[in-house]
């Protein structure tokens, strides 16, 4: 097999058998193909962890960079060349821990990219420490008595920060997830999807079965995605203190506002601008 292959990869997939990441990778690929995008038009920026390896395995352009920094990389790629479809992929540690500050500002900026967060409530690659989304009482090697603080609520944070597309998917419902990623790809703005991704090795609480008992599809309950108050109420349903909470899936909130890269930027992608010596000559006149 050649080294470089569109929509596939010669690289050996190093995820655990049964890992939710396989399904997310397939859903992403299906959504991109359905959107009729060429792999050469797509750039995946991956964080570091098991989730970020989606960049390696998809078979599009990739910048597989640093833990927590996928969003700044995505911002750079998209601003330099808005013609590219940019997808930032990371885990809960990437996006909610190490890169939390970048995420808050990404909601504000409303860059036209898709952001997928594999949320498994645990750190996999470093072997089982608590994540920002680990529920209270979640026991780990570091904290055998359980996590001491409440879990981070990414959907509520996104709403408060002015996010324009806030959604949740589930690695156990790939048809739904594929559709959701398709909607995020179509959204002109920051398409954010928190994806429930059971970790079969380190998270024995939030399993596929555990999620199946609790998830429900917002679209089937008449949720109005333009209603910010309703979205907030849904966002606050989970994570919750009690174990019997229902977990909403689908688009919580969608609004239309100008995408960042179209605000006051040069009309042409800057990667295509040629040098212009006249600009320098003229600028020097200010110093006469």
């Amino acid at each position, binding site marked *: 097999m050649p080294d470089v292959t569109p929509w596939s990869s010669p690289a050996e997939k190093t995820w655990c058998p049964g890992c939710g990441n396989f399904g997310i990778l397939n859903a992403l690929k299906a959504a991109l193909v359905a959107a009729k995008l060429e792999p*050469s038009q797509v750039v995946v920026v991956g964080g570091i962890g098991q989730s970020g390896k989606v960049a*390696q395995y998809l*078979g599009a352009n990739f910048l597989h960079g640093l833990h927590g920094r996928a969003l700044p990389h995505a911002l750079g790629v998209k601003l*330099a060349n808005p013609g590219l479809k940019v997808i930032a992929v990371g885990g809960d540690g990437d996006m909610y821990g190490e890169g939390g500050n970048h995420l808050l500002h990404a909601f504000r900026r409303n860059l036209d990219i898709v952001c997928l967060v594999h949320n498994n409530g645990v750190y996999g690659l470093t072997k089982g420490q608590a994540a920002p989304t680990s529920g209270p009482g979640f026991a780990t090697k570091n904290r055998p008595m359980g996590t001491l603080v409440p879990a981070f609520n990414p959907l509520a944070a996104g709403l408060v920060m002015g996010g324009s597309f806030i959604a949740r998917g589930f690695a156990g419902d790939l048809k739904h997830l594929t559709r959701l990623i398709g909607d995020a790809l179509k959204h002109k703005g920051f398409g954010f999807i928190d994806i429930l991704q059971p970790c079969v090795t380190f998270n024995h609480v939030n399993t596929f079965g555990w999620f199946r008992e609790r998830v429900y599809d917002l679209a089937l309950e008449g949720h109005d995605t333009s209603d910010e108050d309703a979205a907030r109420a849904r966002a606050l349903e989970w994570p919750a203190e009690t174990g019997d909470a229902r977990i909403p899936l689908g688009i919580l909130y969608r609004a239309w506002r100008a995408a960042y890269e179209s605000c006051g930027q040069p009309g042409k992608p*800057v990667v295509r601008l040629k040098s212009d010596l006249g600009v320098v000559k003229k600028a020097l006149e200010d110093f006469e």
Partner: protein
Amino acid sequence: MSRDRQGRGLQVISRTLGRLLVRAGYHVFVSQDVMSRIRGGHNFARVRISTGPVAADGEKAEILVALDPALVVRHVADLAPDAVVLTDAAGGMPEGLNAVRLPLVDLAREHGRDAVMANAVAVGAALALVGLELTGLEDLFESQFAAKGGDVVRRNMAAAEAGHRAVVEDMKRCCPRKLAGAEPGDRLLISGAEAIALGAIAANVRVVTGYPMSPATPIVEYCFRHAREAGLIVEQTEDEISAANLAIGAAFAGARAMTCTAGGGFCLMNEALSLAGMTETPLVLCVGMRPGPGTGLATRTAQADLLFVIYAGHGEFPRAVLTPADAAQGFQAAQDAFRIAEKCQTPVIILFDQFMADALWTVERSELRVENRQERQVPEGVQPYGYRRYEVGEGGLSPMVLPGTPEQLVYADSDEHNEAGHITESAAMRVRMVDKRNAKTAGIRQEAEVKVEVEAKAKAEKETLVFCFGSSRGVVAEAVARLREKGRKVAMVHLHYIWPFPVEAVTALAAKGAKVVTVEQNYSGQLAQLLAQECGLRVAGTVRRYDGRQFSVAEVEAGLEQLTREVG
């Protein structure tokens, strides 16, 4: 020397005065001394005027302009004998000085309809003191204030005329300091920061990022102001981490990208620097030095981050570090930085000091040369999906393709990778890639070797070689010139390409010289350490200063004389 208590318009006053003098044919050097606060404090600018090139502050002030007489006392020690002190008529000041007391604020209110115009009154008065007319001043006010609209230009001009008139009427008592005649030339007055920004624009930069931090902020601000006409994307990010990584993303996508910060912000960028080394991404970083550790002296100068910048980032990867002395070198360094970054696909750091960035330098327009810019070389004839980002080529270099090229994919990988860019843990591939990346050092070093600059001719003579880098050049050059006039055998060697260290050129020079000393703005003698480590040289001594202020010519001269004596 001009100063005020509020810091209001100090930069405007010194720049306007400076530009008028440059237009009149003089060489002007302006340095700023500013406190780290929003308003007020003790702020002043030094303006040195000469008929020949100047690149350092003068020793004693001939004229002190103080809007507030209460502040004159702080500068009595800086005054030349018989210096003229131009200050407001109201308020007490030390006795026994050659004072010109004018109602600066009253004249400002009367003619400019605003006390703030006292600046303009002072400009007019100062020009009268040096025997110049106000010809061309209105044009300068126009370029400074036109954006403010209304009658601001006219009111400033009226205020300046009132100040000028007041001095001329009182000329006898004023003891004017008439300037010698100057030869007109095609010269500009520009700050180091502006020159770096403009050099980057000349080098086709397209994405500029930063998080505000002195002394790098003026570079980003200049780019912000010129974003539209220069076709730039300028981003103030949430932090320095984002600033550096955004630039990496943009460079990966094919845009020339630069991020700007100070030593403290550069600490946060170390992870990104290392990533640029691993992914072989062309990245230019402007790093301004101010005294640390920690917050240190936020608005002052230092040269203490040299070793930090050279070794920053985990892992081993090549980088270039340029240390420009002044505006002309800053303009050139920005172009060189982009050329090297693009050619060698690696990070390049422009390491400057606060003094260099904030000072206004007189440069000949012909010194600001724009070199032919090389666009990214896209390899031709690559089979569909046959491009491999990390193919091992000559000198460790690989072809670069833009993401978005039809039927090609670009893989940039932070994990150790194979030639295609896929993650690998193969021991053999690891060795191959480490060798490939570090092989690029030789190419960068070649650039540095030819840039070692020796002021004065240190030929076969057994001279003391005075090594320095960054903005010390102007001061050291003047001190060395004075010592040579006294018959001392000294020569200055200024390094503006400092890493990879120009080992061959420096070793060859040192073999001819008698001994080696350094002049540097840090405690530990970082350049001396490099000379010992890289060239095995025994450095006989170091003239150091680390109080956050630039060296004076006299102290470097004295320091060098002492070192010459000590080591005999």
